[in-house]
């Protein structure tokens, strides 16, 4: 039993924390929120230069050959920094999709560019009806895609999109679209977090390439993997929100003493901590299941996602309240975390979808729920 990170993994974390601390500061996040500029290209380039975007690619693919646990550390540190970078779509979904379901030629043409930061693949899974595969209405016929996908994180900044669509037999598959090609119309949306741009992508007979291995089971595993990595990004974010709130309540004085010494405040911070740690425990199990290919991945991913959604919302909402009046000002930090938390929620499916996935997994493993 070893349910923690190794020394090498902690070294990776320290290195990443320094790199992100140099580039993605909260001052940068505020500036981007004000300007409406989205994608933080300088930070993404710095990650590429450091070799971090190829972390989980094999050496043959141009990467560092590390695994899901290292990827989880990257996710957590990005979440903590609030960097406006497309970690989850590109490294959490597109790369694993190419690895699991793409052809050798697709991998050769795209993975090196991803590692270098040139190729950005947005993931266009969601539609008006939601994100669950059964709600997909976009169609793929004779190599042409039609449909309307939204919200697509970083859709306006990406070079390609990974799109979920129904093939001629009605099965949901994944395919790749070059966003500079014909039949593609991209419209920027107004997300709650303007530092995390979202777009609607309308496809009208756009040329597309199928990922041949993308059957229902593969897509489901990809979603599970993304949920686990996303949970780490959410936990990093929630922990930072807790840390800055704790620091504030140690400094801020009322009635002659720091407000953090009052139980009414202290106990709410303790509740934030407890929910975050519970989410962390679930995420750890998810990372292990993802890294080891354990059959309980589906269940592990769902509980990791559910606990992370709960922890982020609770921690970011309480963070604003515990800051008092300053907490509801535009210039203060807490709303950055609240906004990003909601954006991360919107990009990978809401609580009801993951509850159903959990119950389905329990049913499949013998705890018949349906």
């Amino acid at each position, binding site marked *: *039993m*070893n*349910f*923690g*990170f*190794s020394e090498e993994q902690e070294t990776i974390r320290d290195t990443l924390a320094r790199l992100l601390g140099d580039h993605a500061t909260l001052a940068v996040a505020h500036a981007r929120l004000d300007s409406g500029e989205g994608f933080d290209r300088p930070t993404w380039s710095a990650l590429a230069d450091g070799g971090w975007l190829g972390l989980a690619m094999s050496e043959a693919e141009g990467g560092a050959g590390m695994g899901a*646990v290292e990827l989880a550390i990257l996710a957590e540190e990005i979440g903590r920094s609030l960097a406006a970078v497309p970690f989850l779509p590109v490294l959490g979904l597109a790369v694993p999709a190419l690895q699991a379901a793409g052809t050798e030629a697709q991998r050769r043409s795209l993975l090196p560019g991803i590692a270098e930061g040139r190729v950005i693949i947005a993931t266009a899974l969601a539609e008006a009806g939601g994100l669950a595969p059964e709600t997909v209405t976009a169609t793929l016929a004779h190599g042409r895609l039609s449909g309307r996908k939204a919200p697509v994180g970083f859709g306006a900044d990406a070079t390609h999109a990974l799109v979920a669509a129904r093939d001629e037999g009605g099965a949901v598959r994944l395919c790749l679209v070059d966003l500079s090609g014909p039949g593609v119309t991209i419209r920027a949306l107004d997300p709650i977090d303007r530092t995390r741009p979202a777009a609607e992508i309308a496809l009208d007979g756009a040329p597309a390439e199928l990922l041949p291995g993308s059957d229902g089971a593969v897509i489901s595993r990809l979603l599970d993997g993304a949920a686990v990595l996303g949970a780490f990004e959410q936990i990093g974010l929630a922990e930072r929100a*807790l840390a800055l709130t*704790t620091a504030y*309540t*140690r400094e801020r004085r009322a009635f002659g*003493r*720091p407000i*953090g*010494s009052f*139980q009414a405040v*202290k*106990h709410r*911070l*303790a*509740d934030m*901590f*407890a929910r975050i*740690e*519970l*989410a962390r*425990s*679930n995420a*750890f*199990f998810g*990372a*292990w299941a993802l*890294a*080891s290919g*354990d059959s309980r991945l589906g*269940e592990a991913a*769902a*509980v990791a996602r*559910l*606990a992370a959604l*709960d922890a982020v919302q609770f921690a970011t909402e309480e963070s604003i309240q515990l800051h008092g009046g300053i907490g509801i000002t535009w210039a203060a930090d807490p709303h950055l975390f609240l906004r990003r938390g909601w954006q991360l929620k919107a990009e990978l499916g809401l609580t*009801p979808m*993951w*509850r*159903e996935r*959990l*119950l389905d997994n*329990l049913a499949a493993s013998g*705890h*018949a*729920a*349906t």
Partner: protein
Amino acid sequence: MDFSDSPEEAAFRAEVRAWLDANATLRDGSEKAQDHFMARDAEEVARARDWQARKARAGWAGLTWPRAFGGREATPIEQVIWNQEEARYGVPPNVFLIGIGLVGPTIMVHGTEAQKATFLPRALTGEDIWCQLFSEPAAGSDLAGIRTRARRDGDGWVISGQKVWTSGAHYSSHGILLARSDPQVPKHKGLTMFLVNMSDPAIETRPIRQISGGASFNEVFIDELRLPDSARLGDVSDGWKVALTTLMNERFSISIGRASGGARAEELIALARRVQRNGRPAIEDDEVRARIADFVARQRGLEFTSYRVMTSLSRGEAPGEEGSIGKLLLGRLRQEMGSFGMELAGSAAGIASAEGDDVARWRNEYLTAPGNRIAGGSDEIQRTIIGERILGLPPEIRVDKDVPFAEL
């Protein structure tokens, strides 16, 4: 990050399983419900003593104790493996947890050679059953505020006072007792610890009936109990330090104990399939599905948190923060699941038709969970521990810290 047993852990597990297979019977669900640590009657106590003696003869008692005191010097993770395996068998409740987990280690640190020689072997074999005489009617969370008095009497001591919430006192042979030996100094500084024989006529034990209907706690009245000075554990006025050793070991025992007592959230799935809501199986109801999924996610989180505790232990780190999280969240979860199970089981929620039906089962969860949220440090105490020791928040202002106890 590896969730599986290491080769050494797997070998230990196999050895444990082989011995348990030869000496006990696997549970098959037909067993009478019982508590993990508390005996309900004399028959359970007798069975527990037999089982402990058997474990001691084979070298499985006091797993983590040093060999010098008859233990096995097992690692904490091996203790966890033992607990996991033993829980699969129909064995009696472990009424020796306080003796082996809390009192024994305290005697090892603070006891005289004579105390070690007298008490440690008998704790291992199950001859002695220990209880913890700490809490009092006026001192629970604020343990250092106890009022039971220890007065010097020639070479010995005379103890008078009242203890409460003493688990298992009614069948314990011995108790570890914290008393105030000097009220003229601040509260933490005037305490002394003693080891007492519960059969002394100066000690009277009265069971307290709890809201669940059970009676595992007691009030203990001590009226002019005469003790020789050799019954003192640790130095005079050093009782708080001795108590902290006991409490630290209590936290350790809880950390490596069962991850989650009580019902599993999955049992609610089975129940929701059997019962109706709005004219269809309850499992098809959206609200029912949402509640159950959230319970499962929370329960898994607690289980995996206990694995993180084990990982800290196996790396030789002291169990700390994760222990308080589990303590804080588990009781509340059990209470909510109990309430939901009762609602699910019957339109007349809470009314059981016969002993052993669904309502009775969840009602028992609902009525025992409030005790989990108080015993061993209340929810509020856990939150303060997390806030002050983990998050580093400024402590509460303590108005009684430097004032002689007698002037409070």
